[in-house]
């Protein structure tokens, strides 16, 4: 029995990527139980099963995740800087750039990579030095038509942070705005694309029992996702959409994009500064609760209000300013939903938590494609299994989200031994939502945040439109009113 199932979904892709990393980099699976790694290849449920293992471990060991890719290379070795595009190719060619990208994508969902693999991937990142000032300037010149000193009012040639395949420079625009300019390594997209064109090695590494056209489709999907992330224009447009959606919000801040200074390999956004996630450990619980409330509101206002979900709820992507104000960074992975895609999810919440209609809930699950229509399990079992997901919002009252809770949620959902496991799957368009469980709850759990999540959710749920439940909710309502958003209906 081969280990890897073919699930042509983002989650399947990431799980595949995680497994790929494991296989490439000789990891033992956590716990070393070889038997547990043998997954039956069955389309549909395979995605769940694959995500399972990653998911459980993600949540249970979430704190280890809290170092962003860039922080690995905080100490930038400028004495080893890459000076030419050839340096870039020799440093990141021969699959290394691909492995780095896959490793990053996998690390977002899957902390189940063994310590050996994580060490290897982090060493791989460490092994990529920043660009020399000249090389970075050359990319800016190629992209923006003039050298950075001319494009910007002021340009700091010393990078302030490493991005996955680029680096971040500070600058001041000619009209005086402080900005962060992310500059991509020259030739990296071509190098990675070339490695993803020649797929014999990947194909062999993936060792999928599925028909070979599925393997090729999986690799094609991997190539598309990786190449998509290499085009900064997409990220810029996501960020712009979200920044516009939350413009003026009392606690949610999204740095604006300077579009005229953003291209495929350069993205310029307003410079943001603030406390990193790790520093929150030293903040009062009240401050942490407020930060958590903002993150929660951001996630679900994005989803219900803008039909967007930032698939990267990664602690490295937040900056904290106190009073619950949070800056959200990095929109490389954003999923837009159609209302048709969103409706069954909304129905599920509504039937379970508001209408308390188990059959309605089950029917919505089937409509969403989560549950086989004729699954021979009782509705009670379905509800019992799924309810843990909604634990934070089923009943009113203050509730603390702990790391244990986050782990339990994920573990339950992905419990392959549950009577439901055979009949559930995650349709492609929803896979990214798993990150709410995988990422958001891990973050909230890490903050040990307490709030009346149900009351906050009621504010956001379009079918309830509850009254503001917290001071932040009041401020948000005022902001929405000022924008002409519909007033919450009286409860």
């Amino acid at each position: 029995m081969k280990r890897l199932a073919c699930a042509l979904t983002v989650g399947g892709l990431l799980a595949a990527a995680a497994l790929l990393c494991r296989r490439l980099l000789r990891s033992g699976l956590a716990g070393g139980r070889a038997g547990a790694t043998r997954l039956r290849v069955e389309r549909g449920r395979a995605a769940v099963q694959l995500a399972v293992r990653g998911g459980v471990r993600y949540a249970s060991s979430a704190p280890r995740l809290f170092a962003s890719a860039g922080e690995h290379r905080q100490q930038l070795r400028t004495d080893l800087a890459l000076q030419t595009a050839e340096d870039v190719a020799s440093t990141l060619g021969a699959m290394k750039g691909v492995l780095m990208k896959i490793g990053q994508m996998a690390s977002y969902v899957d902390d189940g990579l063994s310590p050996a693999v994580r060490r290897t991937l982090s060493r791989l990142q460490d092994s990529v030095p920043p660009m020399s000032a000249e090389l970075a300037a050359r990319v800016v010149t190629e992209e923006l038509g003039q050298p950075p000193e001319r494009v910007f009012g002021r340009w700091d040639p010393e990078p302030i942070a490493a991005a996955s395949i680029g680096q971040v420079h500070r600058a001041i625009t000619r009209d005086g705005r402080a900005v962060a300019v992310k500059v991509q390594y020259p030739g990296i997209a071509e190098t990675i694309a070339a490695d993803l064109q020649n797929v014999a090695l990947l194909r062999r590494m993936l060792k999928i029992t599925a028909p070979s056209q599925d393997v090729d489709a999986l690799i094609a999907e991997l190539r598309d996702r990786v190449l998509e992330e290499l085009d900064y224009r997409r990220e810029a447009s996501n960020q712009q959409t979200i920044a516009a959606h939350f413009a003026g919000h009392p606690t949610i801040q999204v740095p604006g994009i300077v579009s005229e200074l953003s291209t495929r390999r350069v993205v310029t956004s307003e410079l943001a500064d603030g406390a990193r996630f790790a520093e929150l450990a030293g903040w009062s619980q009240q401050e942490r609760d407020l930060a958590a409330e903002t993150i929660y509101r951001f996630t679900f206002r994005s989803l219900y209000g803008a039909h967007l979900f930032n698939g990267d709820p990664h602690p490295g992507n937040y900056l904290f300013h106190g009073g619950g104000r949070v800056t959200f960074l990095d929109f490389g992975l954003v999923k837009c939903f159609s209302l048709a895609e969103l409706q069954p999810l909304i129905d599920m919440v509504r039937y379970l938590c508001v209408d308390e209609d188990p059959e309605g809930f089950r029917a919505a699950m089937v409509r969403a494609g989560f549950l086989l229509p004729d699954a021979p399990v009782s509705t009670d079992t379905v509800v019992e299994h799924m309810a843990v997901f909604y634990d934070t919002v089923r009943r009113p009252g203050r509730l603390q989200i702990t790391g244990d809770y986050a782990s339990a949620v994920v573990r339950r959902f992905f419990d392959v031994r549950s009577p439901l496991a055979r009949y559930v799957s995650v349709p492609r368009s929803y896979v990214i939502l798993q990150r709410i469980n995988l990422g958001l709850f891990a973050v909230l759990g890490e903050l040990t945040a307490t709030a009346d999540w149900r009351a906050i959710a009621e504010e956001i749920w379009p079918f309830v439109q509850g009254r503001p439940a917290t001071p932040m909710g009041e401020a948000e309502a005022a902001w929405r009113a000022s924008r002409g958003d519909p007033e919450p209906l009286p409860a």
Partner: protein
Amino acid sequence: MSTVEQDPYATAEDLVARSAAAYAASVPEDPADEGFFGPGSVAWRVSRDLSSPVAGLRALLLQALHPLAMAGVDQHSDWRRDPVGRLAATSAYLATINFAERAVAERAAARVRRIHERVTGVDTVTGRRYAAGDPALLLWVHSTLVESGIVAAGLFGTPLSAADSDRYVAEMVVAAELVGVPPGQVPASAAELDRYLSSVRPELRCTAAAQESMAYLLDPPGLDEDIAEIWQFIRNAAVASLPPWARGRYGYPEPEPLTDSRRAEFRQALGVLDTVFLGEPGVLEARQRIELRARAARRP
């Protein structure tokens, strides 16, 4: 299989970790001088080339075809008891000769010469006496390594120009002299190297010991499953890079033609192996030490 009752080979499970440790420990922190080659040398470039694992394996495949060289390894060294240790020691020696200061490189070479003094015997296949310190054997080992570096870089790494190939062969003369080949006997240009290699060819044959040793190297038992997969590519690349006559001696089947896409695949496998190697403690720092020396030398 073997002509002499021999112990079975030990497994190769720590191949990557031990080679990496040996390498990292042999790249000096703060050398007193730039050693026998120096940052601007082609030797440094070749030793740092992505293709070097293939070069090493190819060299071993050729070296083993010399019955006396093979007998010395098979009958004396720790080869069977601890093949991985033997390979790691070789990798440490090569890193030392390349990157250590001269005094350290000389001491390492003296140690190898001393060990060689004790390695003498009679080859059971040819009935000929052998001595590991025999310049003829040392020259064979040296020359195959140098040629393999050029061939592997040409196929799977950054190819050397004709001029750089000549320079590399000339630079490497000192390495042969360090282990005891008398001055003047070592090929000093690519053409001389080719002539020398052709001249030895009639003596070469695939003994049972060679067949067995190389079977071990091509498919080392006990490797972690994932490394084993990568190793198959490295192995296939090394076999594909051999001259046809050498493959013929071993009876290996003709490999698929080395198309551009096949070479890219081998390069990718080398990159993955290199990533694993890089993940071992100390390897990145060792490489950074070398890179910093190379950069310091380039500065005006």
